[in-house]
């Protein structure tokens, strides 16, 4: 478990990092953020970067901020930042505080980054699910300039993104959950801190006592976390009741194409998809005002 030889570079600015990455990307230069995925992969010799370009020395990237209706999360914001989020983040902060407890363990959360999770694109990344369900946009920088793309165009497979080799993910822009919406998150993993076997994140816009717009995100079940339009449609205009939740869950179970491996068959994940959606919805419903 000793990594293969690599060079190490500490850029002073993002532009410096981008220039260095442009030079080295062809040989295999890689960005180092929290190192909580990349470094173990190097130790196991499944990743062989020719050079690590360590973003940790670039100032000004470690604090999230609200801009209008968006939460901007720059490249060095650690998972742990969301343990006690800024009250200005509103319900989005509360939701992220409940999500973050499911990511790995305390020490890992002190180093691992939000953007690193999106760049790593594990099918069970909580932040990839959060970004997907809330409809985030990602900001990318290279020597060729900057671009912004929606999260739906970002992850294109398990551990795979559409990032060009010379691009740095500089920030994620997360739309804030509108006031009056309900949200819920439910995850099932083998042990505390393990990657999810399955998880759901839901946001329900309420139209009186009926559900208006629903966002139902599912992670860990398919290779790519995604919203399930069939489940969302099933809730539109319905009351928030166990019955409507069960219908939505069933719609999701019918719609998904679960991963299958030697440990976890697709049938298990399909049932789990329904379970986590139902439970995330039930959790959201606990935030409904009590009936008079």
């Amino acid at each position, binding site marked *: 478990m000793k990594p293969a030889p690599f060079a190490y570079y500490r850029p002073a600015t993002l532009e410096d990092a981008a220039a260095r990455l442009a030079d080295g990307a062809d040989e295999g230069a890689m960005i180092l953020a929290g190192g909580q995925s990349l470094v173990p992969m190097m130790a196991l010799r499944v990743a062989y970067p020719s050079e690590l370009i360590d973003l940790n020395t670039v100032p000004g990237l470690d604090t999230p901020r609200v801009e209008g209706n968006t939460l901007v999360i720059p490249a060095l914001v650690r998972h742990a930042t969301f343990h006690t989020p800024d009250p200005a983040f509103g319900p989005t902060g509360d939701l992220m505080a409940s999500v973050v407890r499911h990511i790995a363990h305390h020490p890992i959360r002190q180093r691992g980054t939000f953007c690193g999770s999106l760049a790593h694109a594990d099918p069970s990344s909580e932040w990839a699910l959060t970004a997907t369900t809330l409809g985030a946009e990602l900001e990318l920088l290279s020597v060729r300039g900057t671009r912004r793309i929606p999260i739906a165009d970002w992850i294109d497979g398990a551990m795979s993104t559409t990032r060009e080799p010379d691009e740095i993910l500089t920030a994620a822009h997360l739309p804030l959950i509108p006031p009056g919406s309900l949200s819920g998150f439910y995850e099932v993993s083998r*042990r*505390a*801190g393990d990657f999810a076997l399955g998880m759901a994140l839901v946001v329900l816009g309420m139209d009186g006592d009926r559900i208006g717009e629903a966002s139902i995100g599912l992670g860990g079940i398919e290779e790519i976390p995604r919203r399930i339009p069939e489940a969302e449609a099933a809730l539109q205009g319905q009351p928030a009741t166990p019955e409507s939740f069960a219908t939505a869950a069933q719609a999701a179970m019918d719609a998904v194409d679960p991963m299958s491996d*030697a440990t976890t068959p697709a049938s298990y994940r399909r049932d789990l998809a329904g379970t986590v959606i139902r439970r995330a919805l039930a959790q959201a419903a606990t935030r409904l005002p009590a009936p008079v």
Partner: protein
Amino acid sequence: MTDATLPNARRSAWIGQSVTRLEDRPLVAGLGRFVADMDRPRQLHARIVRSPHATGRITDIDCAEADAMPGVTVWTAERLGEVPRIPFRATKISGLEPYVQPVLAVERVRYVGEPVAIVFAEDPYVAEDAAETIFVDVEDDNPPILDARAAPGTFLPGISTEPVVVEKGYGDVEAAFAAAAHVVELDLATGRHSGIPMEPRGALAEWDAGRGHLDLWGATKRPHWNRDRLAEMFGLSPTCIDLHEPHVGGGFGIRGELYPEDVLVCMGAMRLRRPVKWVEDRREHMMAANHSREQQHLIRAAVDADGHILAIDETLHHDQGAYVRTHGARVADMSIGLLLGPYRVPAYAARAHFRLTAKTPAATYRAPGRFEGSFVRERLMDAIAQRLAMDPLELRRRNFIGTSEMPYQRGLTALESEVVLDSGDYDGLLTKAQDFCGWNDMQAEAAARRAAGEAVGIGLGFFVEKSGLGPSELVRVTIATDGEIEIVTGAASLGQGMETAIAQIAADTLGADYTACRVIHGQTDRITHGWGAHASRVTVMTGEATRRAATELHDRARDMAAELLDALPTDVILDGGRATNTATGDHVTLGQIAAALDPVSPRRGDRQPGLSAEAWFHNTHMNYPYGAHIAMVAVDTETGRTTVERYAISYDVGRAVNPAMIEGQILGGLAQGLGGALLEEFRYDQDGQPLSVTFADYLMPSSAEMPEVAIQILEDAPSPLNPLGLKGSGEAGVTAAGAAIAAAIDDALQRPGLVTRLPVTPQYLHARLAQFDAGGDA
């Protein structure tokens, strides 16, 4: 300690006290010296190249690139030449010789992870870089055998992959089944898992060409046996090899055996004339160090109308992995030899198919054969109770061997010794265990929660352990002129607290402070013989040898003290590190007594010089502690996840030298037991590729998964086989965990007989529930 007045209150009554551990200070202060912390001048670093193939004939090992790297040396089996294979500890079971492992694969590879080459380099990074360039090509001739119940294949021409079928039994089983009111049959399995010490293995060897002497650091568990085998393999005198045990970060039975890597490191040191260091990494540990536990059991019981067992018939398939290692067929042998636990079984027939497969070789892991066997036996008891509509505890009571039947001759052997249950009150312990955990309240609570829609249940596993395995142990105790006491033993320490327990026994016997004792273990240069640390034997074997040596010293010290104090020896009491004349209150310290016994001391007279004594303890029979595990679990019926909410263990240890340490042993063991019951499994795909080689895939319980645990230590049945009544406690926390958890899950889901294999993963339980409800068998 207050300075109590003699002779009424003895200050040195250490046995039975939960004193703090002597071994902890260096460990918590960062002063531990593990093998990876050790270095020798001019050392080389070794890296093992391991087979990426589960099976096949080796066609080529391409070392060209590594050979060209500066300072790198590569050996394959061919380059190494003829080297003896790793031997095993012989038993009466014959025919295992063809199956032992070469230090580097010869002609064939047989599992993923098998050593095929070794690289030596100046630096561990370079060694790993070089190792990565070496490619092993094989020709796949036969598909890998991955199931011990599959038809045996060919190991070598004319030699099958079933080295032996171990058979045991007594009585007329056929007649019992013919006469039985009920026959209950189960098909059960335990998954492949093992001890995963926090510190992986390591070895550092140095050859002194001038003296013709080899030193090996990193030994543990069996230093003397390993020394003797290395001497044989290298054609050296045992006096020319020394093994040294440094601090050890856990062993659990799998660490400290003689492995290919140990031999290779020594050969590197001898042939390259430079010290060689090898430190295993986690990934290779998961496919190189011994696995354990994978067994399939077809068990049948003949029972009369009142629930008395008439006979048990058992067929075991033991998945040994690719080679026979140092334990030979012991785990299979012990599994059927100790299967019957606390119950009276008038007739018994068992056969253990000991079979090789294309997986990492297996051997003993904490409670070998008993974790598996307790799961099987207790599942059977629950199934019988269910069939007869009887309370499962009542059924057990009806079949318990009674106190009046002790010592009880089983008519079976295990670990080469006759199984004679030395002492025990099983019925009494069950009653105490029920009271201790609040059995009735727990049942009521579970029932109420089930009525409210939760899946909550309680399960019990009763077990008999074995401990104090002989044959012998030697101890030398020496009191220095400053009063410090050195105890040298050939036993070993894997962190279990033996230094403290042995110090307590020595100090108690000598009337000294236990912190004045220094226990030296695992050093072949300090003592001629030793049997190491395994089989819950150290407190019993080294403990009794220590008591004997200390008793002799006590008497010699008192004799000298009597003269120094001008007293009658019978008036002198040793306590608090000094000898006191009870008539006058005058005293001398142990150090002063040792000084008076100096060879040139004028006070010595014709007494034996020095204050040092050796004693042996020989023991042909093991002793048999016993206990009960009681678990309360909640099952998430949708996801199949099981949460262990509460756990209680009652255990009779005969005589508790240090209750807090015993609790620690039981608690740590339980974590491993729960791992085997719910989480841990070495899985393989259909090509024999291991799927569990990191901690992301091989799941061990963390503190978050541990329940509240209550531990009751009992001393109702001291062993008659040693004067202190000692029995061991190293394995009790593991033994019945699978049994109790399986029963609790059945109860939570109100589906008797649901759980038929361990570990009960969410995926297994999810599928099993659907199958059970559809009326299918396991």
